[in-house]
């Protein structure tokens, strides 16, 4: 990512700065909302992987290939200790 950006020069830096001021936060929150929905979905279908006592339905096996790429980040987000200060920014 950074190597490509370096080629852009001054104007791309200004463009990125304006994006950072105006829209970066919105993009992050949009991603956060999507991730929490997805992670909730994985939890109810694959929760047994984390020890949540869910009897895995037949369909979770069919969904498994689609979920595989997300499993590691999902586990980390679910098991990470969180408190109020995590949500502040």
């Amino acid at each position, binding site marked *: 990512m950074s190597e490509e950006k370096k080629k852009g020069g001054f104007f791309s830096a200004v463009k990125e700065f304006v994006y950072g001021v105006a829209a970066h936060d919105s993009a992050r929150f949009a991603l956060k909302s999507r991730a929490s929905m997805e992670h909730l979905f994985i939890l109810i279908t694959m929760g047994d992987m984390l020890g949540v006592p869910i009897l895995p339905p037949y369909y979770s096996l069919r969904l498994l290939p689609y979920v595989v790429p997300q499993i590691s980040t999902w586990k980390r987000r679910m098991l990470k200790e969180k408190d109020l200060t995590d949500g*502040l920014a």
Partner: protein
Amino acid sequence: MNSVVVLILGLVVAFIGYRFYAKHIDSKIIKSDPKRATPAKMYMDGVEFMPTSKNILFGYQFKSIAGAAPIIGPIIAIQWGWLPALIWILAGTFFIGWVQDYSSAMVAMRNDGASFGGLSHKLISPRARVILLAFIYFYLLLIAGAFGNVVVSTTVALKAAPMAWLFLTIGGILAGQMIYRWRKDIILTTVITVIIAMAGIWFGSVAPSDSILGADLANSRWLWAIAAFVFCYFAAVLPIWRFALPINYVASYIVFLGLFFGIIGIFILHPDFTLPAYTGFSIRIGPIWPIMFVTIACGAISGWHSIVSSSGTARQLENELDARPVGGGVMFIEMMLALFALIIAGTIYASSAEYGAAIAKGPGGIFAAGVSKFLGAIGMPAALGRSYGSVMMIVLAITIMQLVIRFMRVATSELLSDISPVFRNPHIGTFIACVLGMVLVMTGWWQYLWVLFGGANQLMASLALLLVTAWLMSEGRSAAWAFYPMIFMFITTIAALLYTSYNLLVKVISGAVKGEALIGNTLMGLVGLFLVVAALILGAEGMKALKRYRSITKNQAAAAAKA
């Protein structure tokens, strides 16, 4: 002194601070390593942990930390004279401000992207986290109160502001709808919604609130306080993309354009300071030490920045070398913003009496008059400029305030849901936050409220520096550059909060205040005292942790010497 000299002085301090002091700390003490994997890379989840270019983060950090505080602080603090305020802004940023912003990003980065709650648990003690969370809740409450007051006093003092604020809200809601629901092009959306917001500024200047609502309603603090908190209520309970964020999006263009052209205006007009350089040690809100050091909060050092740095930015930096420009560099830009405000307050009035009459009505009017004058230098009519300044002030305050109420809602559910599940309900948490904020706005004298907010903010900064010192000592690194600023801020803010709380509560006990002021004084005094007690406990826990780290380091050194 000429205002351009002040700006140049600021640039020189920023250059030396950033290029030499910050570079020295970054390369010699922290030893930033571009090859070390940052949490953003190690734990990349495409959401919170995401490697992001430093230019984007520069903008993100600037937007997150530049609220109303760096502007209002200097406008109030010039009551002691412009020279002490100027010295504190420059020295505070140089020795403390950037240190805190940069190091809180660094400490979070080197600890797997942990936020302050987790860091205080790990580096100080488990109890420290609980106290810190309670501290943060009341700190947020004071932000809501102080910023709410700015919104109310600005809408009362400047009759163009309500219409501009209404149009901005409409533009913001439309932006959210266009981007996320109708999936319209972002450039088209931006152009349309920013034009709507600008039209509101013009409309505000031709149709002021008293001509539409009548003088009674237009001057009613109740009306505007309710409007502000209803606004925040929506921001807290609606999905964030529907209200809070798109309004902030449209607002950021207004602020950015205003600041950009305002600074050009200063260079064109380059006025001299008309207010005295120094007025006296003690004024109505208190003595210069410690009160001035908390009145100017964000322009010199601010605890809010450390929260943004640690919970937000630290998880997105793709390279350790980027922490200096993003964490430290943005603080120097914030310092320039504070100098801009100082120049406005110090140069637009012919005499102290004129300034005194203006400050009695609140800082919003002074800022708007300044913006009007400097935008006038590039050809904007005065009435339109005032309208622009008033909406800038409201935007700077309300964009932070709405997020604060949202955080308070989350905090209520986090802290109190064990007591009763009812506190998990978002409406209950938001309602409590709005009512408490409203009580502060309606019953407290705004200058005391501002000092309390500043005190809490600076105390948060000293707690952040305490965490940084604990981390540096635990790693055996040189810690004096964070330790002494921490001690200075800790003592100053405790003194400021005690002084203000004492003044407030003495009036309550002696029966000098009645009615609304009685409620305001009691609430503000107690919140101030609570913050002091929480900070003292945290300080004591922190000192214990520091001693522990020191003895470990000594033992290690002794063992190494033996070997």
